[in-house]
């Protein structure tokens, strides 16, 4: 009797070894794809979109690369997902997490080939991950108490993060930028408050952090270009026609003169509104919505600077910076909190005019202006800076710091190896494999830098045999160096997230023994 077909026509089912192989192959392919971007000498990728215009992105950021890929393999999708989560959660280490998960699976594949049950491998991996985490915990440095040292830690972390990106040439400059910006947030992780404005032209080195706030808008005609001691009203209100909001209301008239009357009334209403706003005693008015010509003219007459159509984030930031509140009604001017700043002026960056608010009250937000030769450079610079900002803001909350340059991996590998020696049973093989996967990361860093990885990594391992060693790979000189002296640091939170999510993902993929693919949904051809 033939086996009855139970699935729909196009559905497929893969079982046992084949399923496992399919997921291993998918995961390892993804790993190989991104692993050349790892480390300070990692290479970039060009991504061309299939959408309109075939936009090109040049990047080195793991999450960005993986996000743009169209993948059909389910195991690969798991890896992409962890990379995305890493990006959302800590912002950096998006490549490392995929590479580590891939290496764990690569090692697991070998073990499965020698007939070790995946469940045994999983329990071994779990023990190893726990042990590795403890090893890191024992060696973290926490300079929370010592502000000066902590600042230098932040600086080092920022430089380490940036060194693998396009900004590596000016990493000191940008690290300083990032650290300054994050310190202004005073412990909050809301990166929305840091505005990044990209203006092509100039060189990367010309990028700067502005203490105040820059709004990418023009000042209305006939209005003052420079205001000192500005009182700012931040608003979100309709300044176009200010329609009647009561549902179903509509105007119906029977003669031209009536139309004119109503028009007059409307104008009067707007004038009243403007008068009310002016009555707040302000000299700058920023609205989220459009301001039509008529009210703009009224504002100009009153000598008030009116800025229209600032986007939502811009408004929120401006409110944060100047300490005003976002207003929508204007009936009681005495109780609305106005924003203040010392100086508003129009400035030029490149050939664009921007509005600059300086000498602001609260100073929780700031603006970073990026300059660079092309859009692609600017985009990549923004991503890199974003990574650095994320890591820094997380580090401010969790001040534990580790050394970088493959040092944490070697420390973990050493502890895990020791655990393997103590553990009886088949699990021991899995624990060993975990340590090999950890060592793979410094190996890849060295390989990407064109160094003799086999030699370097063994040297490193020998160096780590001594207690309390700070050795890591010094990619610049191509030798084993003291990471503490070189000032290469990483955030503990990032490393921990890499370790845990990679293990989790590997575990998830290993547990699978069957893949059932449903028939793809038929799409109508819209062509």
């Amino acid at each position: 009797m033939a086996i009855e077909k139970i699935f729909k026509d196009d559905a497929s089912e893969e079982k046992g070894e084949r399923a496992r192989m399919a997921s291993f192959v998918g995961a390892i392919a993804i790993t190989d794809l991104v692993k050349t971007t790892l480390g300070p000498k990692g290479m970039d990728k060009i991504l061309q979109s299939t959408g309109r215009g075939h936009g090109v992105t040049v990047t080195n950021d793991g999450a960005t690369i993986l996000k743009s890929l169209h993948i059909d393999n389910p195991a690969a999708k798991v890896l992409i997902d962890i990379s995305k989560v890493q990006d959302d959660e800590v912002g950096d280490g998006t490549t490392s997490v995929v590479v580590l998960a891939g290496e764990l699976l690569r090692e697991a594949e070998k073990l499965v080939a020698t007939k070790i049950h995946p469940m045994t491998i999983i329990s071994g991996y779990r023990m190893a991950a726990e042990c590795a985490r403890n090893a890191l915990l024992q060696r973290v440095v926490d300079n929370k108490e010592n502000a000066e040292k902590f600042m230098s830690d932040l600086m080092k972390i920022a430089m380490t993060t940036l060194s693998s990106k396009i900004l590596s040439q000016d990493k000191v400059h940008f690290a300083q930028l990032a650290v300054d910006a994050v310190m202004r947030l005073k412990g909050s992780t809301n990166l929305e408050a840091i505005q990044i404005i990209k203006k092509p032209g100039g060189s990367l080195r010309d990028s700067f952090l502005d203490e105040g706030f820059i709004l990418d808008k023009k000042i209305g005609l006939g209005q003052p270009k420079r205001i000192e001691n500005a009182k700012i009203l931040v608003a979100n209100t309709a300044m176009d026609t200010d329609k009647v909001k009561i549902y179903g209301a509509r105007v119906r008239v029977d003669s031209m003169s009536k139309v004119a009357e109503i028009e007059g009334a409307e104008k009067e209403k707007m004038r009243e509104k403007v008068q009310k706003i002016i009555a707040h005693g302000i000299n700058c008015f920023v609205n989220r919505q459009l301001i039509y010509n008529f009210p703009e003219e009224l504002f100009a007459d009153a000598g008030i600077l009116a800025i229209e159509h600032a986007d939502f984030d811009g408004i929120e930031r401006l409110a944060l910076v100047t300490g005003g509140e976002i207003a929508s009604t204007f009936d009681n001017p005495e109780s609305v909190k106005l924003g203040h700043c010392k100086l508003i002026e129009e400035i030029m960056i490149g050939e664009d005019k921007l509005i600059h608010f300086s000498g602001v009250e609260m100073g929780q937000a700031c603006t970073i202006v990026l300059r660079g030769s092309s859009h692609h450079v600017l985009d990549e610079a923004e991503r890199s800076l974003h990574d650095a900002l994320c890591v820094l803001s997380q580090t401010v909350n969790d001040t534990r710091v580790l050394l970088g340059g493959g040092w944490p991996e070697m420390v973990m590998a050493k502890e895990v190896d020791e655990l393997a020696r103590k553990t009886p049973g088949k699990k021991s093989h899995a624990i060993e494999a975990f340590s090999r996967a950890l060592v793979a990361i410094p190996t890849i860093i060295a390989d990407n830098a064109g160094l003799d990885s086999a030699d370097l990594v063994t040297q490193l391992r020998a160096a780590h045999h001594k207690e309390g060693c700070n050795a890591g790979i010094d990619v610049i000189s191509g030798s084993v160096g003291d990471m503490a002296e070189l000032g290469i640091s990483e955030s503990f939170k990032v490393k921990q997230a890499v370790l845990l999510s990679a293990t989790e993902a590997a575990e998830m993929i290993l547990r699978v023994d069957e893949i059932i693919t449903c028939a793809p949904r038929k799409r109508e051809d819209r062509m």
Partner: protein
Amino acid sequence: MALAFDEYGRPFIILKEQDQKTRLRGIEAQKANIAAGKAVARILRTSIGPKGMDKILQSPDGDVTITNDGATILEQMDVDNQIAKLMVELSRSQDYEIGDGTTGVVVMAGALLEQAERLLERGIHPIRIAEGYEMASRIAVEHLEHISQKFDFGTTNIEPLVQTCMTTLSSKIVNRCKRHLAEISVKAVLSVADLERKDVNLDMIKVEGKVGGKLEDTELIYGITVDKDMSHPQMPKQIEDAKIAILTCPFEPPKPKTKHKVEIDTVEKFQTLRLQEQKYFDDMVQKCKDVGATLVICQWGFDDEANHLLMHRNLPAVRWVGGVELELIAIATGGRIVPRFQELTPEKLGRAGVVREKSFGTTKDKMLYIEHCANSRAVTIFIRGGNKMMIEETKRSIHDALCVARNLIRNNSIVYGGGSAEISCSIAVEAAADKYPGVEQYAIRAFADALDSVPMALAENSGLQPIETLSAVKSQQIKENNPHYGIDCNDVGTNDMRQQDVFETLIGKQQQILLATQVVKMILKIDDVISPSDY
């Protein structure tokens, strides 16, 4: 094919368009059905037990689900075969009724079908087999009752409940921190349980997940979380002793439901309308303020002006809260959902100790926590995990654990797990078989064999020799007359499940046997399958 002849010997056709239909009948039909049922059971067989494997399911849209939960696998499998759909139904009804054991029930049904096939080959009529199964299932269920044990727990002694939940969780990917999750589930169930009526309303437990962090960060919140933030960025982020107005009317101008038109034809009308509108907003906010609310939760959106007025009057507000969440908030805070501003009164406000906004990660994700509510019976389990699939799987696992805990509160009888209950039933059924005269005896014996398949699959998945292990355990049970011996899946060294603290609920097990038998009976009774052939 159905071809009949009338009294003159002329052929006539019974089925419409019969040449376009395929038809299987008699023993062929039964065999085809059994084969389909077995195919489904075979897929699930490897998922059973603490060392069971997971499946990747790719949906028609390319989304990936990784799971070990029988009901979920079958639901997403998108099967085409009718009999296979019956098996899917079977698993789903176990899910609805009990919530756990969805894999076991399908494996059990598959084994029963397999045994039935053998009996059919020996020429036993399917109805006789079905009857035999029915008798056997009755014996097994009675026997389960017999070997089950009552255990005591209370609000102070939750250990037995935790142990049972841990058994359920140990077969899932979350078994790394099963202790933690089991405790959370039990505490959640206990806090919403009505111990006197022995009832638990699982709707009061909300399971929320947010990607990021690690599984160990999963927490139980005595209150509600809402995936929303304050409507105005400058509203306070934390409110102590909040008095909450729960509204289902928008902060917008009124929209009478009857069709109407407001006509503006003079300037005066325009002016009055404008003033009215302003007043309307003002009144709305003032009313909320007057009853003493310190937080407004609204199902609908706010107009910009209303939003600012709220901010201005120092009245924090949350907008676009979903209906289900709104209800939960109302239950938790003891407030009433108010459909009109006019009906707001101080008594209708809900109360909560702390309401706070919490942000996560580097993105702008924010959640609102409403804690220390007046009526603390609504709780939220908040899951964190490395990736989306992990969260989804954890949600399913927690659901199973919650169901198990609920079942225990309803009926505190347990049987021991690890296949021990099945083995014990199998022995009992086997022994009882000899007492029945007639062909049914064979069917009853076959049922006993089928019961062995669950422990067999457990042993297989754990990498043990299935036949050897099973026979050893069986003989041990008979020799020592102790129904607590099962399969030692985790290599602990003993196979006394009482020592390993592996239990399952009695109703879960009983339901598994009953449901599986029912479906098998139904499948066996089919002797004709008519389906349109491929078009």
